[in-house]
């Protein structure tokens, strides 16, 4: 259980926030950041541990959001049930895309391209299909009751998304410690060698994609319940594909806490850019792009890796000083 102590501590700290902070602005910021952290953890399972860089994780986020919304609005399904089905739909989309791409041996640039194409096909289809509300989008009716998965208090939403993030952290940790996780990392480091060692590469990658799809879809389901509106540009837009890969890479790719840390940093930077320039569109994303390049250039293991490096360097320096003194 010792391995899970850091997760418990971090989650407990986060859980106390609404008890101290009552500002809706701050809570809203944290809810959105946690939602991106959750979606980013999905990307991290496949991209961080498995080394398969998807540029189209919007496919999962959007599927979760649309399935949750459409089931409620058009079929009268209970919101909690819709939420669960949305997650399952994300896993299913992951299984389908995984089966198609990994069976045909796509990797690297090709994999990034084909995931992007899947997300675009879904986006264009959702923008014309009647069931999604086409260009108008789908609006979930306001119904502030717990059984409708809607709450007056932002704190409740906060604790729900925090619980989901906690679960995703635990899943990442479990994967890290399992045989499956070792296979996944082996595939990332050298696919041909992994194959030669008898690892069923395609199956391992497909399994990672299913888990990844489910986790990112959960963030999409949450989006639908929190904002009560979904359209094709939000659900399947490139913004989510980009934010979802930014957070783990900036935080620390292939680490348990990378997506959470990255999401907090990225969202804070975006908010900062918006404060400086007013509500002009675009500047927050310019900052994201610049941070992405800087992180890759200077701390390829992300900010968490960078902090560890800095600590080592400081300790070595202190050690050297003590030696000389």
């Amino acid at each position, binding site marked *: 259980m010792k391995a899970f102590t850091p997760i418990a501590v971090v989650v407990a700290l986060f859980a106390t926030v609404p008890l101290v902070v009552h500002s809706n602005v701050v809570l809203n910021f944290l809810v959105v950041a946690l939602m991106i952290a959750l979606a980013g953890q999905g990307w991290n399972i496949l991209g961080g541990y498995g080394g398969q860089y998807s540029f189209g994780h919007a496919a999962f986020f959007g599927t979760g959001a649309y399935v949750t919304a459409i089931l409620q609005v058009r079929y009268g399904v209970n919101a909690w049930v819709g939420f669960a089905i949305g997650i399952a739909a994300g896993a299913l989309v992951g299984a389908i895309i995984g089966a198609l791409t990994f069976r045909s041996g796509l990797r690297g640039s090709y994999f990034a391209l084909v995931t992007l194409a899947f997300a675009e096909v879904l986006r264009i289809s959702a923008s*014309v299909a009647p069931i999604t509300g086409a260009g108008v989008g789908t609006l979930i009716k306001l119904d502030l009751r717990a059984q409708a998965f809607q709450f007056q208090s932002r704190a409740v939403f906060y604790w729900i998304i925090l619980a989901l993030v906690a679960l995703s952290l635990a899943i990442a940790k479990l994967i890290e410690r399992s045989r499956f996780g070792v296979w996944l990392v082996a595939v990332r480091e050298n696919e041909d060698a992994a194959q030669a060692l008898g690892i069923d590469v395609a199956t391992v990658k497909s399994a990672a994609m299913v888990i990844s799809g489910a986790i990112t879809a959960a963030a999409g389901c949450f989006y639908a319940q929190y904002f009560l509106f979904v359209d094709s540009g939000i659900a399947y837009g490139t913004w989510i594909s*980009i934010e979802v890969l930014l957070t783990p890479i900036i935080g620390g790719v292939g680490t348990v806490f990378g997506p959470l840390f990255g999401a907090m940093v990225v969202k804070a930077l975006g908010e900062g850019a918006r404060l400086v320039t007013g509500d002009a*569109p675009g500047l927050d994303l310019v900052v994201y*792009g610049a941070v*992405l*390049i800087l992180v890759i250039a200077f701390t*390829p293991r992300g900010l968490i890796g960078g902090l560890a490096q800095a600590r080592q360097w400081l300790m070595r320096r202190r050690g050297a000083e003590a030696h000389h003194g």
Partner: protein
Amino acid sequence: MCHPPLPASILVVLSPAIIIPAILNGLLTGAVYALVALGLTLVYGVLHIINFAHGALLTAAMFAAFFAYQFGIDPYVAIFLLAPAFFAVGYALQRLVIGPAAHGDDRNMLLVTLGIAVIIENALLYAFRADTRTIDVPYAFQSIDFGFTFVAVPRLVGFAAVFAVALVLWLIMTFTDTGKAIRAVAKEKVGAELAGIDVAHVYAVTFGLGTACVAIAACLLVPTYYVNPSAGNAFVLVAFTIVVLGGMGSVPGALIGGLVIGVVESLSSLFFGDSLGQVGIFLIFIAMLLVRPSGLFGARA
């Protein structure tokens, strides 16, 4: 026993008087697609990565051509200013940003080009908002009568220019030392390095050539196409398809693929409407990637 008669509308659409101009238009649009794809395939052929900043660079070049026109420079004249300028931009991006930042890792290179795309696109959005701009060149609506159909002058110029660019590229690749160095690096990077070729320089030149291609494409597009901060994306997604269809890294593949996709798009929007025409292209794209990722003309991977 008798077949139900075809609806009149389908018969009208199937008549040669409509199909032939649609095919011709497709070929003309396809030529510009081919030019965008040419830049993409060139970079892939040498650096073995997909340049996700290609679309954003196309948009930036379209803005440059737009503003050149505000200073009285015709887009077709602007080609001779913007192509060298964007060559320099591309060279600098690869030499100073992508190369050093990526530490030679392909996955990092992909991400850095994505980061550059995000920066360019959103800086344009921040500076110029989402407004759509157009220019009014006097020849925008001129057309030539071919007897059976009319063809717009700007499209014809574009078509001719694309083949001129392809010819120039072929001459550079075949007869210059730089071209030989590029081909050597594309074939065998380590060997080329051992033979004394400066690989970082060759990478940057290739990236510069790819960027010059989008600058020319932008100048050809601006007379008839609108400019806004995401204008380039539509072309690049199509260009990805073309590159995959023609085979990653294959120059003739990009040219033929561009023309084919232009015609497919033109015909499918004739039959199914615009947005479904786009879905059709993506489905071709995914199917190609899954079935034969090396493309119709590429060597089997």
